[in-house]
């Protein structure tokens, strides 16, 4: 005997493995066996081949690699004896899957075996083919299988039928070849053949509409008769399960009838009687009977309308729901989901029971029931159902909280009857399960709050109250922090008190305390801390009495190890110390956030969003695209002066203003972004800072849109001021970033500068129309002749006030333009005041070319949008 071929029997090996006490021991035994098997394979040992393969299968099941045995399977299959083939095919199905190339080698053996004289060998081949056939094999062997559908032995016919299912699933084109043989299987008496034949027909209908039509025309009556016979058949011990003859056949027939009846009134009509009989007469005290009823109900729900049957079906489901067996309740809920499409009213009747199921101890049932409740909610019952769900949220277990929170949020958003209700419910959810809430949800809440101007006071007080009670739920803290930052004064002064509110007394320092806690709390994340820092900064002007303390807290964070916080606090403290003149403007309240923009973004409707210009492409100079209109993003509002009181201007303009620190006019108003005029160089620059060709600018638009789906983007933007300015700073030319450096280092404000220098150039009426005049005053910094500071002054020549005033400018590529925020966005009528705006132009070809600029001025007068455009060529030559 060969010393290498393992002498141990399969049984002994299994025993040895089972005797192992540790995983290491087991590995050792398996390694030894594998070595022996490999050796046997190398020696091409025939006697033990099938035993070795059996061992390998066991080893495979334990999870060890057995790839080296794959070729052995093929050898066994190719041998002549039945025992070898049997174990070979079993190994083939276990050790290989359809993706392995070895499988191709077996096609030939399979073909031979499908034509073998021994029907059991044919059976083995059919079984293997049915279980692991790849598309190529299916194509090659389909004719043989088709032939076997007419084989004399029913056991082969049924195997061939199931094998055909695999074939048509892999290669749907072959479906029509199987149509006729399949329909002849339906006439059989043998249950196995009948079951597989019906199943084959069902799958044929799924892949081929031709087959569906064919069976509809030719087979319905036969199927109905078969179902009737089987339903009425007397007791037959061979097929009986719990007093029902062959429930499997019942179910398959019902399934095929469903597919045939769906969308065909005539076919549906044929089967109503038998469906009624099955639905009303099937015993429902055992699982088998319920399985049939369940299938029957589904068929009734799917076929063309028949009121009487549906009542019957809904009643069955009602019985299912009140059943004590969890399985039955589960399938009842499952089916009601489908029934709700058909008959919502009938399902609503079971609402109380379904709500009970949400509270079941079984996770599967809970999940089903919650899905169902979600579908049940409409405008009329949203309040009580939400109340129930929120109450349940308090007691539900942790794993389920995520699901239930998501559903509640989505319901509240979808059906909210009033803003105050929405806010109330969201506060409840946030304080209960804020950690399970997705970012979009609390973003949306902030937008709603921002838009509900009469509820600002109420909301901030409510938020303060709940967030004082607990800081466990981070998203609650975030919303609270944001609101305190924005509406801190309302919190302290009890502005906008509602009748239902309990009055609370909060002092300014209490509010600052809350922010300080948020910054210092270890548990809270960076985003929350950054938001709290911004809120504090905002409070510095709302609460003058606390400003020193706020300054201290901000200064403390200069030493933060987190870059974001450190940078932010350095910037803020700089503003607090040296830039009193702009501080109050910086910390103004946010303008109302645009709901439409947000929902558009959320819906991900990219093309519409672009054409509606609700999101405007905006490129930062270093090519980092940002969501131009990310409403949450711009939490810190630099531009409150210039931003229109109502968001008439698009988000893009807003951002541009926001970035006023040194960003060139990166955005364009709606008109331009679609304008065909973008062909001209100069206007192009309006869109893309003058460095990008049009193709790129449109692709960047897509960038922005996609990035706006990224959760992180808004978070990154949360800290509006500095992240914008820093982004732009590291990318623009040194000259233009100088402005920002000034801001941070406090070497003096730009405006002071050119007053010192005085106008060295004559001022210029750069643009004049019948309604508007724009004059430019020029100044230069000594030692920097390339850069020109321009102060633009706008005067209204018409008798009407201009609102939403927006000035934009574009320059050719050799120039770099930088716009500061305008002093206002409202221009009083008849020259009774003016708007000023500072521009900084850097001429890279100073001395060779003179300045040139294209401008566009947009404003609203008498509720009409007006757009004025022009080009300025008459700049003094040596600028």
């Amino acid at each position, binding site marked *: *005997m060969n010393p290498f071929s393992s*002498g*141990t*029997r399969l*049984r002994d090996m*299994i025993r040895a493995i*089972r005797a192992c006490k540790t995983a290491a021991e087991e590995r050792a035994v398996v390694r030894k066996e594998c070595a022996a098997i490999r050796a046997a394979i190398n020696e091409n040992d025939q*006697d033990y081949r099938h035993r070795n393969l059996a061992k390998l*299968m*066991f080893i495979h*099941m334990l*999870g060890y690699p057995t790839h080296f045995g794959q070729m052995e399977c093929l050898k066994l299959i190719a041998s002549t*004896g*039945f*025992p070898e083939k049997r*174990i070979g095919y*079993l190994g083939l*199905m*276990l050790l290989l*899957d*359809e*993706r392995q190339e070895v499988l191709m080698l077996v096609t030939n053996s399979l073909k031979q075996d499908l034509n073998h004289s021994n029907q*059991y060998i044919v*059976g083995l081949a059919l*079984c293997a083919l*049915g*279980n692991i056939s790849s598309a190529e094999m299916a194509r090659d062997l389909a004719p043989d299988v088709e032939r076997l559908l007419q084989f004399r032995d029913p*056991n082969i016919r049924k*195997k061939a039928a*199931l*094998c055909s*299912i695999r074939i048509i699933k892999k290669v749907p084109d072959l479906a029509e070849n199987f149509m006729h043989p399949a329909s002849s299987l339906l006439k059989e008496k043998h*249950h*196995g053949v009948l*079951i*597989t034949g019906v199943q084959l027909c069902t799958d044929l209908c799924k892949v081929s509409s031709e087959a569906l039509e064919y069976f509809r025309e030719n087979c319905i009556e036969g199927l109905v008769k078969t179902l009737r016979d089987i339903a009425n058949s007397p007791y037959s011990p*061979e*097929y009986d*399960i719990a007093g029902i003859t*062959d429930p*499997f*056949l019942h*179910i*398959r027939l019902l*399934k095929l009838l469903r597919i045939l009846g769906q969308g065909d009134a005539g076919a549906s009509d044929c089967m109503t009687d038998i469906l009624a009989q099955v639905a009303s007469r099937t015993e429902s005290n055992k*699982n088998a009977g319920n*399985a049939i009823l*369940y*299938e029957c109900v*589904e068929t009734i729900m799917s076929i063309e309308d028949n009121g009487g049957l549906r009542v019957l079906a809904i009643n069955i489901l009602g019985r299912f729901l009140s059943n004590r067996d*969890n*399985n*039955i*309740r*589960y*399938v009842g809920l499952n089916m009601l989901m489908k029934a709700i499409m058909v008959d919502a009213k009938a399902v609503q009747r079971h609402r109380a029971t379904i709500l009970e199921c949400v509270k079941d101890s*079984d*996770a*599967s049932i809970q*999940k089903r029931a919650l899905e169902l409740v979600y579908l049940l909610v409409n405008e009329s019952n949203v309040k009580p159902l939400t109340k129930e769900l929120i109450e349940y949220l308090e007691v539900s277990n942790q794993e389920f909280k995520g699901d239930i929170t998501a559903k509640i949020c989505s319901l509240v958003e979808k059906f909210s009857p009033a803003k105050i209700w929405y806010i109330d419910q969201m506060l409840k959810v946030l304080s209960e399960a804020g950690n399970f809430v997705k970012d979009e949800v609390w973003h949306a809440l902030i937008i709603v709050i921002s838009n509900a101007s009469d509820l600002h006071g109420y909301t901030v007080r409510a938020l303060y109250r709940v967030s004082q009670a607990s800081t466990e739920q981070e998203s609650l803290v975030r919303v609270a922090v944001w609101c305190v930052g924005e509406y801190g004064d309302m919190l302290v002064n009890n502005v906008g008190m509602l009748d239902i509110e309990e009055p609370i007394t909060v002092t300014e320092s209490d509010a600052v305390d809350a922010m300080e806690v948020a910054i210092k709390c270890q548990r809270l994340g960076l985003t929350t801390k950054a938001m709290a820092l911004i809120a504090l900064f905002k409070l510095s002007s709302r609460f003058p009495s606390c400003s020193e303390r706020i300054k201290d807290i901000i200064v403390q964070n200069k030493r933060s190890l987190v870059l974001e916080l450190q940078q932010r606090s350095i910037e803020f403290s700089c503003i607090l110390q040296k830039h009193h003149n702009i501080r109050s403007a910086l910390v103004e309240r946010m303008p109302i956030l645009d709901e439409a923009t947000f929902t558009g973004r959320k819906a991900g409707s990219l093309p519409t969003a672009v054409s509606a210009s609700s999101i405007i492409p905006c490129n930062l100079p270093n090519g980092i695209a940002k969501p131009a209109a990310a409403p949450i993003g711009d939490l810190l509002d630099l531009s409150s002066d210039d931003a229109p009181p109502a968001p008439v201007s698009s988000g893009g303009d807003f951002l541009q203003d926001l970035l006023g620190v040194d960003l060139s006019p990166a955005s364009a108003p709606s008109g331009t972004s679609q304008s065909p005029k973008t062909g001209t160089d100069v206007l192009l620059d309006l869109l893309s800072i003058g460095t990008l060709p049009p193709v790129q600018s449109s692709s960047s638009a897509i960038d922005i849109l996609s990035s706006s789906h990224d959760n992180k983007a808004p978070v990154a933007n949360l800290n509006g001021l500095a992240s914008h300015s820093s982004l732009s700073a590291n990318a623009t030319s040194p000259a233009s970033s100088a402005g920002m450096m000034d801001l941070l280092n406090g070497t003096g404000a730009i405006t002071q500068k050119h007053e010192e220098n005085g106008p060295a150039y004559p001022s210029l009426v750069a643009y004049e129309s019948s309604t508007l005049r724009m004059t430019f005053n020029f100044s230069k910094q000594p030692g920097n002749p390339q850069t020109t500071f321009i102060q633009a002054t706008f005067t209204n020549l018409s008798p009407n006030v201009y609102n939403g005033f927006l000035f934009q400018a574009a320059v050719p590529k050799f120039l770099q333009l930088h716009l500061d925020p305008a002093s206002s966005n409202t221009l009083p009528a008849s020259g009774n005041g003016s708007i000023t705006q500072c521009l900084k132009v850097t001429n890279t070809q100073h001395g060779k070319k003179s300045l040139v600029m294209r401008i566009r001025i947009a404003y609203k007068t008498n509720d009409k949008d007006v757009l004025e455009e022009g080009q300025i060529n008459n700049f003094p030559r040596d600028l």
Partner: protein
Amino acid sequence: IHFVLLISRQGKVRLTKWYSTYSKKERSKVLRELSGVILTRGPRLCNFVEWRGLKVVYKRYASLYFCMCMDPDGNELEILEIIHHYVEVLDRYFGSVCELDLIYNFHKAYYILDEILISGELQESSKRTVVRSVAAQDSLVEAAKEETGSTISNIIALAAK
């Protein structure tokens, strides 16, 4: 049906049969995930687990969990019936089957399963037919062994001593 699993209460895999394509990695992941979910479920809960958009129907017989994974729109109750059908056939074949039978004769358990399901679809609803068919094939094997005579069986007999 996408796959059939037999898992012991200790989490040991006793049988796996894959009708849909899963790579080796996916297979072991499926096994790990599902045995985690199913073995921890309490006794009075329903027999269905929703898992990765599919449904797994399981039933415990003594120390073994029989699991079958199906499409979400299938008939859960029927799958339960199929599991029971398989168990009854095993029972008839082995004569009051126990876990050890399935360990030492795992290949027989596969043969029986192959007579009940092909390509994840039910093949035969009569237990008698299934048992008869498996028995017929077994006797073919026996006959072949006797025919080839001494060589293999003798060696096995020798080894057994």
